[in-house]
């Protein structure tokens, strides 16, 4: 039993939350483009560039909020870049996404080495980097478990929760949300209603760039306090999988990301009962594959029901 308590404890839940947050932010961006009918796998690269710009902003201006401003600005530019290629030039969204990811990897590595003269990991030359503040409320501490879980997280963790709600309201309960979805599902009818589907796609692309960059900012200034080459490490792809699994519905996507975080945290802890690390390190990916199988199975079943 003692072994069980070393695995299933408050640390597991905290770990779940920490691991899930960058994925949640990124997935919220990704689901926006999903609604307007764009398959954006470029979120991985957007996240990495976001992480880099956040660290550079924070370092140059010695303030974390300038880091966020940098990340958001660059994120919007990336969204615009993606949008211009996919919407205006009608390039293949998949190719552009892959190109963006490869480009991001090379660009951040190159810029890190030329701008700071460092490679691998960024180490602020004069002292510490300004990182995101941690928030906590005293009254929460009186509640067991919940207090430990909800308190003392970095700013963007709370922002991500609010954003889940905001995105959900935006997509399903505002006219703008209807137009967004219509531009993906039936652009012609949106056009006949006097709205431009392209504008909606641009909007989604911009939001996606911004949120993915925020995910990166969280990774670099909230989760860790450094930039490290390729630090997004496939989290963008996991976010993409969560969007598919949660059918692009923000609360469901949020749960999917939490599930991923949980699997990851659990996998690491299972090593302490003697399960090989080679096996536990692929748990998140096994989880992703199982999620996908479930999605296919559900859609098939729905189709059958409709046919009857």
């Amino acid at each position, binding site marked *: 039993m003692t072994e069980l308590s070393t695995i299933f*404890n408050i*640390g597991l839940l905290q770990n779940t939350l920490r691991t899930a947050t960058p994925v949640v932010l990124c997935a919220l961006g990704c689901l926006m483009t999903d609604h307007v009918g764009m398959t954006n796998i470029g979120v991985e690269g957007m996240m990495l560039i976001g992480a880099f710009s956040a660290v550079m902003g924070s370092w140059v201006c010695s303030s974390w909020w300038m880091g966020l401003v940098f990340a958001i600005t660059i994120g919007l530019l990336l969204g615009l870049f993606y949008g211009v290629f996919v919407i205006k030039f009608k390039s293949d969204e998949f190719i552009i996404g892959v190109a963006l990811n490869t480009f991001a990897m090379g660009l951040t590595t190159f810029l890190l080495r030329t701008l700071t003269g460092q*490679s691998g*990991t960024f180490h602020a030359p004069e002292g510490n980097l300004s990182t995101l503040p941690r928030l906590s409320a005293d009254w929460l501490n009186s509640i067991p478990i919940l207090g430990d879980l909800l308190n003392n997280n970095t700013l963007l963790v709370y922002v991500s929760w609010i954003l889940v709600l905001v995105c959900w309201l935006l997509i399903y309960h505002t006219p703008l949300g209807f137009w967004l979805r219509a531009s993906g599902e039936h652009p012609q009818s949106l056009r006949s209603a006097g709205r431009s589907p392209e504008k909606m796609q641009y909007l989604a692309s911009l939001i996606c760039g911004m949120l993915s960059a925020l995910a990166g900012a969280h990774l670099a200034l909230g989760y*860790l306090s*450094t930039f*490290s080459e390729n630090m997004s490490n496939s989290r963008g792809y996991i976010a993409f999988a969560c969007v598919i699994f949660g059918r692009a519905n923000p609360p469901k996507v949020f749960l999917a990301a939490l599930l991923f975080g949980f699997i990851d945290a659990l996998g*690491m802890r299972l*090593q302490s009962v003697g399960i090989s690390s080679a096996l536990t*390190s692929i748990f998140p990916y096994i989880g992703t594959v199982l999620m996908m199988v479930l999605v296919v199975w559900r859609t098939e079943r729905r189709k059958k029901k409709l046919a009857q």
Partner: protein
Amino acid sequence: MKKIIALILSLVLCLSVMAPALADQPAGPSVAIVVAGTLGDRSFYDSANEGRLKLEADLGLTTTVIECAEDASKFENALVTAAENYDVVVAVGWQFWDALAGNAATPGVPVDFPETKFMFIDNGLDGIGDNLMSVIYAQNQGSYLTGYIAGKMSKTSKIGVVGGQDSDTINDFIAGYEAGAKYANADIAIEKRYTEDFEDPSKGKEAALAMYDAGCDIVFAVAGKTGEGVFEAAAEKNAYAIGVDSDQKYINPDVIICSMVKDVGKSLYNTIANMDENFKGGQIWCADMATGYIGVAYGTEDMPQQVSDELKAEVEVLAQKIVSGEIVVPSTLQ
């Protein structure tokens, strides 16, 4: 216009390929080091790179570094590219085993380039040819000392270690660390976690946080760049950590109490600077504690020192005993 640009570009390409051949020949051999990961780990690969820079600065050798970014598909090509253009090729990282050893269908890279001297850092491979020298390090001996320090300094009698991968070389560190800790404190509990990733600090941070939460107060990071996360976790939990390969204390002097040093750069420098004497082709050379390439470092004097002078003296005595063979440290290699 396009044709002209294409012409210029291809000219540039040709020239850059020929450049090493055109340059004036310096006194010593030209050296290429090929690292399996990326520079900037402030640990293993950076140590190798320091050795290279020193060769360039002291002896005026032409050198280069090629990074493979943990991409196994690049290993062989990187070695071949290096061998085509340089006299000495240093493969830094045990991951190069397959590319150097070859298989039934294709011989290893050293066989194809008999004129080029190869050094294989961190793995023992022989029987390929007289132009390949393997250097292995007795990291278990150095880790024994850091394990001893951790064992003596732990207040909770519980310490941890984060390994980058469940592999022989990494486990060699861990075996030494465990033995040293047990020698210091027979009742000590040692937790170990592998991140299966040398390049993701977040994973290192999570692994270390879980151990600190479980009551460990000192964690040894044996995971390259992933180890950066261990130091962050230590800072967050006001606990201690131990660095690896290079003297890493400067990264965070308040939490890193010492580092297990595996001086890849120095061994590389000394071998290449005196090729005729020190290059032992066809052999596996073990850099153990007696060679001075393995040890413990405590940063510089202006940094806060957590390890007491008495403990440092004890460590010195232990090191002597390891050199004299009085203490035999367990190993997972050989």
